[in-house]
């Protein structure tokens, strides 16, 4: 255990000393962070396991009409739809709650690059999860082989819409995490705000606006049916309010807030 080993310079990549870590490398690091902690690892395992459970449950309890691809996908996406936003929140808030931000932002001082890498990594995770969920759903449909018409109708469109659904979900999580920078408040806000909003929106004078602003109403059809133009517009406005606005506030907060002392 002599100090001389420290003297040995890193024998490769001396150019790396003056080269900014590329975005690709930062994205890989952020993906790694999502699964290399105890909480992160089990969150991903839980997501896959729960997907299998609900697909099997649908097979056991539903009837033929429920066993179409669309019918199984509707429930099969739910575990991912609930847990991905939590992953997104933790990806940002753990930098503060676990104080790893002192390392992350010391190694990459331009914080917007870190946030960018987190967003891209989140989208990659959402799409990977989608592939796994769709695989489980498709396997469930094949086993159930309902034999009703339209079992496999609109598969491509539904998968595309599901991609939007899961991706926006995890980005909303990242945005909420960046706004609050604390795990528990962000998770509570993410689950409580839409419920509160639904309650407010049920008041008659909000009834017309609700389908445009309530994410639960506006986004639910994404994994249930092929959207028409109005529904896309409604999904767009709801996401602008619940995803883009928090994301902008979050960028502002995350780049300014002092890292935990």
């Amino acid at each position: 255990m002599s100090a001389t080993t420290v003297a040995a310079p890193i024998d490769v990549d001396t150019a790396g000393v003056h080269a900014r870590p590329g975005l690709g490398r930062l994205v890989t690091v952020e993906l790694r962070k999502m699964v290399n902690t105890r909480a992160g690892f089990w969150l991903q395992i839980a997501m896959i396991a729960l997907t299998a459970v609900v697909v099997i449950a649908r097979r056991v309890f539903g009837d033929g009409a429920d066993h179409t691809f669309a019918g199984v996908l509707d429930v099969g996406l739910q575990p991912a739809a609930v847990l991905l936003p939590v992953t997104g929140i933790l990806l940002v808030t753990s930098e503060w709650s676990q104080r790893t931000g002192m390392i992350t932002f010391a190694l990459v001082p331009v914080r917007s690059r870190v946030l960018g890498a987190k967003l891209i990594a989140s989208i990659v995770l959402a799409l990977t999860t989608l592939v796994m969920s769709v695989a489980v759903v498709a396997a469930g449909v094949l086993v159930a082989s309902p034999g009703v018409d339209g079992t496999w109708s609109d598969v491509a469109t539904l998968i595309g819409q599901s991609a939007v659904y899961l991706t926006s979900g995890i980005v909303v999580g990242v945005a909420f995490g960046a706004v609050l920078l604390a795990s528990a408040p962000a998770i509570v806000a993410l689950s409580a705000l839409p419920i509160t909003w639904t309650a407010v929106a049920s008041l008659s004078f909000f009834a017309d606006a609700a389908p445009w602003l309530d994410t639960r109403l506006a986004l639910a059809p994404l994994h249930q049916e092929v959207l028409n133009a109005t529904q896309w517009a409604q999904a767009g406005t709801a996401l602008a309010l619940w995803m883009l606005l928090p994301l902008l506030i979050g960028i502002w907060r995350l780049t300014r807030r002092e890292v935990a002392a």
Partner: protein
Amino acid sequence: MIKAEELTKRRGGRAVVSDVTFCCEPGTVTGFLGPNGAGKTTTMRMLVGLSAPDSGQALLFGERYRDLPNPGRRVGILLDASAQHAGRRGREALALSAQMMGVPVQRVDTLLELVGLDETVARRRVGQYSLGMRQRLGLAHALLGDPEVLILDEPANGLDPEGMRWMRGLLRGFADRGGTVLLSSHLLAEVEAVADRMLIIGGGRIRAQGTRAELLTESGTIVEADDLATLDAALHGAGLAVHAAGGDRRLVEAEPEVIARLAIANDVVLRRLAPAEETGLERLFFELTAAGASAPSPKTDPLHLELAGATA
């Protein structure tokens, strides 16, 4: 290498760091000393861009930290050994940073071995680490990018005496090979043995800085004599600064030889004539930092003026 220029940070209207200016050169270890809450951590956080100064600036290699393309490869930082994800394994925490700064992963094992964390410990989650293990992991992390500069906040915290001795050797070796080290401590003893230069902070202001010799020259010579009145008159007559130093003692800002000659010339018998060394640094440290939050401004603080004069 490290340059702080009039760094100032206010929190809640109160300045926690005021006009902090210093410079750390390659090949030296600088001890950053001050009691808890004196502003050491805040200053170090400003050096590496984790905290934005309200005025002044910090430069590393002549650049702002955030403008360094890959800072982990040039500056090794340990600001808080507990700032690691509790649910991540020790080795994985290093591997993650190695990946981020583009360092080959074999270096992780080299450093784990260097800091004395064996394979069993490296496989455990950081949440189960003792403070001493975290400090070792933190040191490994700081050295991971083979940096030229080390900035370490209270790195000796939680280390046993053997660990402290080992760390001093490591830092000395690092500086002797041309590295620049800034390490903070609230304990004089931790820093004294390894630092070439010292930086004393109290109440958010730099109270004194210089080499050990420079700081101690200022603390002068302790004198005891049978005829204090005559000695005082002689010392004053020679234009030397004299301070009461408890009992019949005087602290004189002069070399022992100068005082001895004055004593002979004035027929005063000296009972004691000694450099104020052993106690000097400690006394200085306490005097300079005792004022704490209600620190006097440098203009009215005689010790500060003397010391500032010595280092200018």
